[in-house]
């Protein structure tokens, strides 16, 4: 693929990904305001943007086999844990930004766990099996991710067990 088109596909992937997440946040807000139908519209369009993001991603040729995809995911998590979030945290601390510091810390803590889970999964798949995986629980407040059982309280943000979303 030639350069300009490749760059455009990357921009389109970035734009659609952001639109998807933004509309989900807007849907949440509409629900809080007691507007369930507006929330549903935001969710519908968010899903449509996900279809676009996936399409662009595919055309970029970035979707390999699952072993390659796991490695790609591991690399992404490690970059966030070792470089991106530590740098962001240092700046937020320097500038005394408590709110930003919190959302950066939440993400940093979870990405460490994600990298480990992907690494274990990759070993299983490379030995020719689907991974053995218990239920996975995700904290909807901070993104803390845990295999097996949801904790009584989230160790990162303190959210209670009933808040966790099961996969």
């Amino acid at each position, binding site marked *: 693929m030639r350069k300009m088109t490749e760059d455009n596909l990357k921009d389109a992937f970035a734009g659609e990904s952001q639109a998807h997440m933004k509309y989900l946040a807007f849907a949440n807000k509409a629900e809080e305001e007691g507007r369930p139908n507006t929330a549903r519209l935001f969710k519908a369009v968010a899903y449509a943007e996900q279809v676009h993001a996936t399409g662009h991603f595919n055309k970029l040729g970035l979707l390999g086999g699952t072993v390659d995809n796991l490695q790609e995911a591991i690399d992404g998590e490690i970059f966030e844990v070792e470089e991106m979030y530590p740098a962001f945290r240092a700046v937020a601390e320097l500038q005394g*930004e408590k709110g*930003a510091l919190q959302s950066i810390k939440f993400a940093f803590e979870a990405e460490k766990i994600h990298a480990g889970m992907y690494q274990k999964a990759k070993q299983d798949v490379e030995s020719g099996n689907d991974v053995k995986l218990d239920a996975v629980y995700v904290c909807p407040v901070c993104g803390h991710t845990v295999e097996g059982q949801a904790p009584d309280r989230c160790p990162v943000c303190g959210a209670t067990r009933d808040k966790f979303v099961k996969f």
Partner: protein
Amino acid sequence: MWQCTVCQHIDPGESAPIQCPVCDSPQDKFVSYEPPAGGVKTWQNLKAGFIGEAQAHERNLAFARKADEEGLSQIAKLFRAIASAEGVHAYNHLQHLGLVKDTQENMDTAFERENLAEVKMYPRFITEAEEENAPEIALAFSRARDVEREHGKLYKKAMQHMMAERETTYYVCQVCGYVSDGLLPDECPICGAPQAAFKEVL
């Protein structure tokens, strides 16, 4: 920092840009902007964090679909769980950026985004894909553009009905992202996918 009053784009520069890099509005459309969380660098980092997490979320969902196709259902589950966690992070960063406002304003922002994707971003991408002899990608871009136009119409309609909170059902084409309001089409008017390709949004 500066904010474009037309498309809400925020520019971290010391003076307002001559022209908005997103919607091309002139300099006089910019007003001074105070970030909700202090300094310019932290604001830029939150934004970069949001973009990175949003992309990781989409990438993980694509990887989950691939793992399902390969019959690796447990790995697919792991990809989906982590996609969800990245979604939480993206949401938190967006909140701290102060970009989730009340629904009226969120509708305006969403409409403006669809409009810009339709009239500015995708038309250029289509032309450039044709110039570079990538007809398949030009077609994918042109479908996305057509769909964004329909999304814009849906937001506009919803803004007009906001007070009434009209009840309807939305169906989304899983091939091209077309959203149908209240009617399950026999086939997708944008990409021709069959009725079975549509998913109802609950």
